[in-house]
């Protein structure tokens, strides 16, 4: 029974992992940039949501669109002023520019907010629904539902809107897209901003069960990369599968191994996938 319970928990948590990792795969799919600072936008989303809760009395989950908006604006600036300069640079410059961004964002938050841990209290924090002999944690369920809604909105946007189609065209062939009159620089900004916005959105919805501090991104870096590599770097649908898989792997390994080894299992899965199938388990390469 605890096995099924773990899978259920894993799927609920994994849905959030999918949404926070989509941005990473979106930026890679559209412009070939791996953003090592992506997890810092999760931290930013969490802080925005925390401040909205503490000062405006907003429920952290309802503050998620605000987190999205703040990160979107920040991402727009970062793409326009920093990353756009290294799009054609060697991967050394690309990797270490985003590493520099990671250092700046994390320490900027440390400077601005201090190193203390902050958490929220909500009415539903410790509630759970019973489903036969299974328990569904209410904060997990809410985070999952919000992630699902967000993921569906993204899917709808990418499928039906002109922007979404233009972005997909840019991902497929930037030069052809440009010849068709698409402003690719604008698409890059849009993809990057949308991506970090989604990550921040995910940060807000997990706030009821994760404490925020400036270094919180570090706990999610390898996790997010595992999600996108499992699904195939650049594939949005792959990130969803990868997110659910990582959630389940985490929940199951917590069942069989001591808590300190939980990340170890994840890292090993990550390395194994990279070594054996770097194009991802789901297959479709970019």
């Amino acid at each position, binding site marked *: 029974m605890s096995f099924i319970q773990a899978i259920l928990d894993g799927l609920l948590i994994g849905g959030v992992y999918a949404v926070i990792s989509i941005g990473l795969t979106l930026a890679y799919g559209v412009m070939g940039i*791996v953003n090592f600072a992506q997890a810092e936008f999760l931290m930013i989303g969490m802080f925005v949501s925390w401040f909205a809760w503490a000062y405006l009395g907003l429920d952290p989950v309802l503050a998620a669109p605000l987190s999205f908006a703040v990160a979107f604006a920040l991402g727009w600036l970062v793409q326009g002023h920093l990353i756009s300069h290294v799009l054609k640079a060697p991967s050394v*410059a*690309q990797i*270490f520019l985003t590493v520099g961004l990671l*250092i700046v964002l994390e*320490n*900027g*938050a440390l400077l601005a907010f201090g190193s203390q841990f902050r958490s929220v209290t909500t009415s539903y924090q410790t509630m759970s629904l019973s489903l036969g002999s299974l328990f569904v944690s209410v904060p997990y369920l809410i985070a999952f539902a919000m992630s699902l809604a967000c993921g569906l909105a993204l899917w709808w946007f990418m499928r039906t809107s002109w922007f979404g189609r233009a972005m997909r065209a840019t991902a497929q062939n930037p030069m052809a897209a440009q010849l068709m009159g698409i402003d690719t620089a604008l698409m890059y900004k849009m993809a990057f901003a949308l991506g970090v916005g989604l990550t921040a959105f995910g940060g807000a919805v997990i706030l009821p069960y994760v404490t925020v501090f400036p270094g919180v991104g570090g706990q999610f870096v390898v996790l997010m990369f595992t999600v996108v590599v499992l699904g195939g770097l650049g594939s949005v649908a792959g990130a969803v599968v990868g997110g659910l898989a990582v959630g389940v792997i985490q929940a199951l390994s917590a069942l069989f191994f001591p808590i300190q080894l939980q990340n170890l299992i994840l890292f090993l899965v990550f390395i194994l996938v*990279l*070594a054996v199938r770097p194009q991802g388990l789901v297959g479709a390469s970019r």
Partner: protein
Amino acid sequence: MKRWIPIAVIVLAAAAVPLLLNPTGYWIRVFTFTLLFAAMAQAWNLIGGLANQLSLGHAAFFGIGAYTSTILLLKFGISPWLGMFAGGALGGVAALIIAIPTMRLQGHYFALATLAFGEVARVIANVWTSLTGGPVGLSVPFVPPGFAAYSFKQLLPHAYIALIALIIVTAIFEVIRRGAMGYRLRAIRENAAAAEVIGIDTTKVKLQTAVISGVLIAMLGTLYAQVAVFFDPDTVFNAMSISIRVALIAIIGGVGTAIGPILGALFIVPVEELMNDLFSAGAAGLSQLIFGVILIVVILWRPRGLVTVIEALRTWLRGKGAQS
């Protein structure tokens, strides 16, 4: 003959610096760590610069080196000089184990895989308490001072050992870069398929480079342990403060050049120390923030590193000389 003169001048100048610093002071420590990090970045430069495989997991080998010599000293009383070679051997083995599954990965994928490997090493060091003492960390025991025991009352000998280490690692880097292996690596970097066609065993060359790089940084781990005296898994296996920092030093200085890591370390380590000294009490994170900003500025302004500033200065000076 002529090109040895500037090198000799630089080495002599570097050797004179510790004599001018207060032997029990703060700056001799900064100087020692500058040399040590320059040597570490130079070891990284072999794989990151010559083979163009951007490792973000060198902390794994560095930590193995620090732990091996210290554990051998603690449990068996073996001199760290010998422990250094044992650590180097283990570091080389670890580098081989990591390199075999990751070597065919390129660019971002290799960086990600090595980052994860470094984290695996950190988690293992934290969990394997019976060997490493776990998160509590290890203290290098105090033994009667003497060269054979690698124990000194002052930092001065440590500064010279770090200087000699930097010279040795730089010499190895230059020998490899100028030798047949350097040409093979350059061929692989430019076009791996073409290199394979003309008969280069690309996997073998990359593995050799990875192992040499791992051995060297593991041996430097022992030097670090002897200077730092106390360390824990989260210090020596740290992705940010070891793996990424070492790569950054080489990149800010000029990746793939012998002088790059030295320039990078001379710039980064003292600046960081100065920041910590100035701001640590008032504002946590400010020194790291400035570090990040410097990194972004250097990458955008000088993607090939500070070494290009020197080159530009040199051409400018030469132009001036020609005019007069």
